[in-house]
């Protein structure tokens, strides 16, 4: 081996040493970011697992230990002379008094069979207390239909469902186990609802896991029959994005640019139809205009030549808007400037074709006042085409 060869080999080894130690350091660091919560060595991993929760007291994520017995392993139904026997199988022996809130729920078409333990009360009406089981109807009232006898046999929970309950036990969709240590339940974001630890689904359809009834008194009210002008969940922007469903239509504001026609085309009273247009103005300032007309050719859409009048607009750059039909058939369009809170409220009356406009320069403590038709005119409703539309002044 020559001196050069010896030196070269040494340097190459040194290079590799630097690379390998550096890479090891990187791998070590990046791996440390993704490590799960440490598992105490005295708890065998197969005895259970750790569950993530967000601790609202500490304001950070944390973990609690879920014992193995909570894992579902089976579900059987047997016919009896006077009803049915439902058996839920778990992966280990069920302890007599767990130091955790536990619920076991079997969801049917419109009922739920609930078992509660560890001091937890399921707030049906009346409630299912700890150590009890009951059948509850799944509606806003959560009425308890019947208490059900339950026995715990090693790793099984056995429920006797009397025939009188009239429940079709073959329609079970989902078995859910929730488990949360008693001392941290109040700190878990979402409470016990967020603590699903085991699931058994009998359908291929993905379904939601219903929440427990709220223990505070439910505030129930009959919703007014107002109806949004937009499809549920729709959020249309101006200028539109691809999935807004808007297409280029005619040049409504006659500024030489074709405007956008959104897929609203909502039939309203008196044979009229409302629709939403997006006026192509400048790079940064396009305008929504709500229009009304009559679908004379019956194609289910309000075509450009069928528009009779504008009845609402968005004169603010980056404005937020929504429209709805109230229970008396009036059409409302509310526009709000997110920077100032300035609010405009347009109301169209399909019966007489009139328009009212109120404004609220937000924060002045005065609320809304009418600007159209002008109070001095003595008129209640004005001609929509007579309003000083901002989009007409601004081309």
């Amino acid at each position, binding site marked *: 081996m020559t001196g050069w060869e010896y030196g070269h080999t040494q*340097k190459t080894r040194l290079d590799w040493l*630097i*690379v390998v130690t*550096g890479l090891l350091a*990187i791998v070590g660091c990046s791996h440390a970011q993704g*490590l*799960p919560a440490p598992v105490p060595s005295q708890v065998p991993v197969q005895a259970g697992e750790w569950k993530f929760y*967000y601790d*609202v007291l500490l304001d950070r*994520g944390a973990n609690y230990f879920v014992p193995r017995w909570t894992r579902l392993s089976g579900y059987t139904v047997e016919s009896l002379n006077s009803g049915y026997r439902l058996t839920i199988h778990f992966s280990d022996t069920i302890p007599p008094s767990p130091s955790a809130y536990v619920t076991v729920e079997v969801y049917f078409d419109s009922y739920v069979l609930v078992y509660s333990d560890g001091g937890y009360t399921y707030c049906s009406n009346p409630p299912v207390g700890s150590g009890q089981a009951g059948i509850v109807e799944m509606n*806003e009232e959560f009425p308890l239909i019947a208490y059900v006898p339950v026995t715990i046999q090693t790793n099984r929970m056995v429920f006797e469902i009397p025939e009188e309950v009239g429940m079709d036990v073959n329609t079970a969709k989902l078995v859910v186990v929730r488990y949360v240590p008693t001392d941290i339940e109040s700190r878990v*974001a*979402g*409470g016990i*609802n967020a603590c699903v630890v085991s699931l058994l689904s009998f359908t291929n359809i993905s379904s*939601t896991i219903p*929440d427990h009834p*709220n223990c*505070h008194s439910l*505030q129930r*009210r009959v*919703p007014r029959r*107002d109806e949004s002008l*937009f499809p549920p*969940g*729709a*959020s*249309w*922007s*101006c200028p539109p*994005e691809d*999935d807004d469903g808007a297409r280029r239509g005619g040049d409504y504001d006659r500024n030489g640019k074709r405007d956008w026609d*959104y897929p609203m085309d909502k039939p309203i009273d008196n044979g009229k139809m409302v629709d939403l247009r997006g006026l192509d103005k400048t790079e940064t300032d396009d305008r929504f205009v709500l229009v009304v007309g009559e679908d004379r050719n019956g194609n289910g859409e309000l075509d450009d030549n069928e528009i009779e009048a504008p009845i609402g607009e*968005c004169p603010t750059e980056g*404005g*937020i808007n*929504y*429209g*709805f039909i*109230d229970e*008396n058939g*009036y059409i*409302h369009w509310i526009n*709000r400037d*997110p*920077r*100032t*809170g300035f609010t405009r*409220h347009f*109301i169209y009356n399909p019966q007489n074709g009139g328009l*009212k406009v*109120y404004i*609220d320069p*937000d*924060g002045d*403590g*005065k*609320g*809304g006042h*009418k600007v159209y038709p002008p109070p001095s005119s003595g008129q209640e409703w004005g001609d929509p085409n007579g309003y000083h539309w901002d989009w007409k002044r601004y081309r």
Partner: protein
Amino acid sequence: MRIAARIAIMWFIISAAAVGLWHLHKQRQQPFANLSPGKVVTAQHPCSETDKCTFYIDPDTTEPVNYKVPRWSMVRAFWYEVARDGTVMFHIQMCAPLPEHSSNLMALRIDFKGSRYVIVPLYGYTFPYTDGLIVHGEAALVEGDHLLTFLPISIVGERVLVVVPAWAVKQLGRRLDYVWTFYAPEEYGSLIGGYFDGIDLSGLKRSVAISVPPSPPK
């Protein structure tokens, strides 16, 4: 000298690799294309010192009726964080601490691109969806009028926390669009036509037209 140069080059390569891996790691932790975890987005206008006064339209008289919008119903800021296991936590900070109970109506909503959103009815309202009811104090991920999954929430002082488990994060849209607050007085009885305000999370600064929850039962 030569050894020193080699060491410098090697460490340069390693540093570049480290930066690359770090970015890869951060990218893996960022479920939305438009907003980084921990970035706080505030309302365009600051929280007011007092309650606001606005109006609804009485459906029978079509005349305005003024009402107060409490500071606690207005949104101050929004941000989210990602836990190690991929759980996403949305934080919505209001202008004042939320009361334990209210007889008025209020809901929060987080919109994603498309028609998916997280609805959080806080007070006095039950949202009817085709797959179930969402009562106040609950939160759910919704698409159109279909309920996809319930989500854990908690309210601590002026902050509302919505937790999306790791397995449900892929059901959210890839772009955060808006966070909304809706409020209406008890006597009006509907969030449609009540107060609304939002923070633009998309960064597009476009005008937007939205549907207001809930869609009434058909």
